[in-house]
């Protein structure tokens, strides 16, 4: 599973992209975030307030209960501010 991070979520997580293989009990976005938070302090800070984090799977916006597959590209970022 490919993870990508943008803006301050990237800065707090401390990296912009990584390939991970979460355990089998990680089945949705919320589960993935829980698992990531256990991997280090940076993730804890990035995901401290989930109201401020947006998620895209395979480049489409999704909610926290979105189911995941091993081949997914999952992106975490703050609410967008373009335009």
């Amino acid at each position: 599973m490919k993870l990508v991070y943008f803006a301050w979520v990237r800065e707090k997580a401390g990296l912009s992209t990584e390939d991970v293989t979460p355990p089998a009990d990680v089945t949705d976005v919320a589960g993935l975030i829980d698992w990531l938070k256990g991997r280090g302090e940076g993730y804890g800070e990035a995901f401290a307030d989930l109201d401020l984090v947006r998620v895209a799977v395979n480049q489409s916006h999704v909610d926290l209960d979105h189911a995941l597959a091993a081949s997914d590209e999952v992106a975490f970022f703050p609410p967008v501010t373009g335009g």
Partner: protein
Amino acid sequence: MIRVQTEDFDLGAEIARMTDGKTSIGGICSFSGLVRDIVGEAGDTGVAAMTLEHYPGMTEKALQEIEAEARDRWPLDDVLIVHRYGRLEPGDNIVLVIAASAHRDAAFDACRFLIDWLKTKAPFWKLEETTDGTNWVEAKESDDTAADRWNKD
């Protein structure tokens, strides 16, 4: 058509390209967004520059979906969305949206829809440089409200 680029754009040239040889367009509405120096406003310290980060791949997909939705909702002759990324200074262009239609109402509504949806759906983030350092621009509730106007029941 959509484009994501570091280079500046030329509104006059884009519209000339859009109208060249066509006689079906009655009205063209455009909106350009620029980097504004907010120095002097209460609590602000002035923006020296800003850097736009985006999500290559998803950005193009999101902008294409927004264009498709606009063409679905209004009878449009042409649509253009151009969004820049990278480092920009006050006065620089950030974004351009254009809608061309036989009818003025469709051109205006589609143009406003394009920028309203882009602001809440396209994956861009602004990092401002001020005299106090850098900070990520926070999303505005007013942008959500503007985008929500276009939601169908």
